């Protein structure tokens, strides 16, 4: 597989390695160490690090600035960008800003609704949606053109990603929706956290039936549970999340002080099983405010050391 960008993530995938990515949430403040310390914890265990963009609509340090911090550490950031907060001028402008620092990966998202965050009374933008953002980046990269049609001097060279939630409804359009994202130009996919492995495998079968796994690199998303409480919260409160009762029960049946270890164990077992699913090209480990556990998960899942490319 030939590569189209200088992205390390793209290179690793093109060589047939299972990729490992993780994410860091920027701080609710301006301390750069909040990002650099998290990155230090995980940098040798992952190929690229996503920086979230005002996740759950809570105002935070911007994704672009945090990505630049990673770049200055010699790491490989994935710039997450939501269409909630910026119109097409701001999106294209930030893409160029990121490209000026040779940030070579972008994840195109619509973003959680602002009512979940600290500015519930604010406007949302949604000038374009996540699929159209994928198209926008591809146009900027491949055609060297702005949406307005003018030429871009030194176009961005970004490996373009999108999210997929195999568990959202309606299930019947989950595979067509992926096809649509691939058609829009998505080159890699990071999925929603997977707890219902049966359902994920059913989705992957649909993905393979249409040959989509050969057109896009699917990284399976995983978030280790810290406790039974977290499992219940994820099950009942987080939109689009599918946590089977068996997972909640397994954690609830574990003594409180051992629940975190059990959560890690579940995560590692899931990776082991997902490694066997044809079409899964890697893992996206989102250890929310628990970054220090990423190395352990990666090691136990047999994904360490990371390949040199």
């Amino acid at each position: 597989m030939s590569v189209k960008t200088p992205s390390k993530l793209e290179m690793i995938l093109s060589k047939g390695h299972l990729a490992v990515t993780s994410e860091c949430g920027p701080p609710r403040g301006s301390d750069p160490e909040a990002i650099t310390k998290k990155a230090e914890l995980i940098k040798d265990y992952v190929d690229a690090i996503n920086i979230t963009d005002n996740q759950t609509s809570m105002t935070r340090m911007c994704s672009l600035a945090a990505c630049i911090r990673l770049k200055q550490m010699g790491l490989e950031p994935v710039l997450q960008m939501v269409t909630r907060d910026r119109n097409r001028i701001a999106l294209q402008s930030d893409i160029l800003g990121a490209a000026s620092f040779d940030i070579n990966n972008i994840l195109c998202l619509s973003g959680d609704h602002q009512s979940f965050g600290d500015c519930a009374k604010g406007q949302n933008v949604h000038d374009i949606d996540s699929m159209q953002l994928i198209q926008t980046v591809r146009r900027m990269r491949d055609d060297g053109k702005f949406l307005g049609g003018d030429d871009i001097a030194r176009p961005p060279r970004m490996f373009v990603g999108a999210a997929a939630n195999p568990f959202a409804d309606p299930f019947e359009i989950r595979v067509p929706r992926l096809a649509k994202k691939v058609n829009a130009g998505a080159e890699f996919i990071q999925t929603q956290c997977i707890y219902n492995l049966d359902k994920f495998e059913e989705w992957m079968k649909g993905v393979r039936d249409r040959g989509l796994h050969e057109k896009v690199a699917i990284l399976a998303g995983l978030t280790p549970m810290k406790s039974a409480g977290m499992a219940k919260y994820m099950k009942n409160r987080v939109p689009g999340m599918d946590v089977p009762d068996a997972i909640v029960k397994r954690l609830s049946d574990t003594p409180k002080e051992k629940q975190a270890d059990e959560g890690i164990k579940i995560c590692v077992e899931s990776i082991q099983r997902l490694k066997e699913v044809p079409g899964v090209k890697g893992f996206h480990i989102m250890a929310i405010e628990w970054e220090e556990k990423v190395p352990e998960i990666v090691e136990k899942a047999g994904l360490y050391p990371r390949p040199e490319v």
Partner: protein
Amino acid sequence: MIVGDQKPLEEIWEMIKNQKKVLVFGCNTCVAVCHTGGNKEAEILGSMLRMKAKQEGVDIDIKDSGIERQCEHEFYEKAMETLEWPDVVLSIACGVGVQFTAEKLGNKPVLPGLNTTFMGSVDSPGLFTEKCQGCGQCILAETGGICPVSRCAKRVMNGPCGGSTKGKCEINKELDCAWQLIVDRLKALGRLDDYEKLAPIKDWSNERSGGPRKIVREDLQV
């Protein structure tokens, strides 16, 4: 039709309490259908404000009246005399009616008694839901007759987003996911294949973003 929601009595009272002569002025079309701004509601609001004035011991003369539509010249003809009387008019029309009445009356204050909320339908008695945002470029033919601009909280053109759960929107479990409805309708129409057509980036210049809009029909002008 345009749906409005009457402002809280306290807020209305704060606006009018220092006036001497107040006319509560209804609009008997859209906002009468949602029972918030019609001539009957003007009568009810008038009585409530008179009771409030009495309770507060404030001397205000409050009357009520109304016309068929506050957004067209012809309906004002018979009402101009009534509108001469008050110091201020409390219009319970939509924002269009409030502004049009203000234009008709020159320098007399016209206050809003409603919060104009949306363009919608009467789904069942007492239930009104938003159906259109007047974006100026209708895409209902592509979306199975269900509007994602007005009915999706993120106005996603290629939905649904990842927050769609059991047919409901991530922001509210009572709210239908517009894209679930679109998918269901496309399926019913035997057009589910159309789901995979990418919606083009929308031209918002015909919407609010393009500035205040107007339509000129020279054939109708006199």
